[in-house]
């Protein structure tokens, strides 16, 4: 296995082009470390991204929050711009695993590893995040909605492409993140719900994103329909949550939880998230 530490995105893209599917990108490494065990012989090149400074940037650009792919969960949880402008993402980040994991795991790794219950991805889906992807040094960045990437799963990023960062339009101040796990630290959510809506008197562009309700993280569009354009009431929050449980969720039974329990969690956590975001403070 050859090892590289490129200094620029373009250098990394050249390496990806050269080694194709034989290349592995190293960000935080908490997933990769595990995946490489016993499989290291099959990997031609390990490309460590840590020297590429622009990948770690978190910044406000006009009405957009930009989060570089190498930003760690700890950085996202504590960054003033994230906490102020996209609090749902900070809430999801702080809920992730234990401190040992948050200080290392990156948002890019979370998005690219295809984890069906990634906390950060649930929050990103609820605030309509856009993924900035580079495929070659000559092409401009491709901007892909996070939903498209999540729907396709891991294969959404073709070999040779690099997730550079995520863009989130500001204005999702009414938001909340709720999850249920069997153990607080380093355990996948049984169900996690992120709720966001645009600022304003009515529930404008409500977004309900759920993990654990389907094989991938999904938008609960039936629940959103119940809320869209209406005023917030506790009853409406409950109706939307019931719609999420009855019509949006298609959970499966696995060793962590039964489908029926997950469906009930979808209802409970969706209601809690909407009320936490929009109810009396």
């Amino acid at each position, binding site marked *: 296995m050859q090892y590289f530490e490129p200094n620029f995105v373009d250098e990394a893209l050249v390496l990806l082009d050269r080694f194709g599917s034989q290349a592995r990108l190293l960000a935080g490494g*908490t997933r990769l470390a595990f995946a490489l065990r016993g499989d290291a012989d099959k990997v031609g090149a390990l490309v460590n991204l840590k020297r590429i400074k622009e990948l770690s940037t978190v910044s406000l650009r006009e009405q957009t929050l930009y989060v570089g792919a190498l930003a760690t969960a700890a950085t996202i949880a504590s960054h003033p711009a994230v906490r102020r402008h996209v609090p749902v993402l900070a809430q999801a980040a702080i809920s992730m695993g234990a401190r040992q994991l948050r200080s290392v795991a990156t948002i890019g790794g979370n998005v690219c590893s295809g984890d069906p219950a990634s906390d950060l991805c649930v929050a990103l889906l609820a605030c309509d995040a856009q993924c900035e992807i580079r495929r070659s040094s000559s092409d401009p960045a491709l901007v892909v909605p996070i939903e498209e990437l999540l729907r396709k799963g891991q294969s959404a990023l073709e070999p040779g492409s690099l997730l550079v960062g995520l863009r989130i339009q500001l204005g999702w101040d009414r938001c909340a993140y709720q999850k249920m796990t069997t153990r607080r630290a380093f355990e996948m959510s049984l169900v996690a719900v992120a709720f966001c809506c645009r600022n304003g008197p009515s529930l404008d562009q409500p977004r309900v994103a759920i993990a654990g309700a389907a094989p991938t993280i999904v938008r609960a569009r039936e629940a959103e329909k119940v809320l869209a354009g209406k005023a917030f009431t506790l009853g409406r929050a409950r109706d939307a949550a019931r719609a999420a449980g009855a019509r949006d969720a298609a959970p499966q039974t696995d060793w962590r939880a039964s489908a029926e329990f997950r469906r009930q969690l979808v209802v409970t956590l969706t209601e809690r998230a909407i009320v936490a975001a929009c109810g009396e403070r």
Partner: protein
Amino acid sequence: MQRVRLQVNGSVREAMVEPQLSLLRLLRDELQLTGTKEGCSEGYCGACTVLVDGEPVNSCLFFAVDADHKNVTTVEGLEDAQGRPHPLQSAFVQEGGLQCGFCTPGMLMSAVALLEANPSPDENDVRLAIAGNICRCTGYQAIVSAVVAAAAVVRKQDAQRSARERKPMHSRP
């Protein structure tokens, strides 16, 4: 093979490593620092917790190449220059904060990181700070008591130290 140069418990160490080698294997196999334990190897148990630039990480999932030019602290680095145990280590002994002891190095490192960030933690803060560390013997109560007790000792030591440092300026004739 890749050369890494890092500071471990205050000493500069160098090694040639395979790119996929974990920091845990580097510490235990190459640098003979076997205080750090390998538990689950999957990042669930926290037995392998060490500090990298002051932040706790699971060294089983941390690439050795990522520790290049970093400052790593392991349980072996907790004693002071005179070889006296860290107040946390003493408190674990006094409070009986260990049974089989396998989780202890990781617990200690998570607790060190906590006290750096929060010198006056309450029980809940301690439980959150060690949420990523499993004690297979389930002796959590004594561990939590030990960390709270050690925090008081560290605060007292810090106060005495800063009083000593201030003395020449404030000493009266």
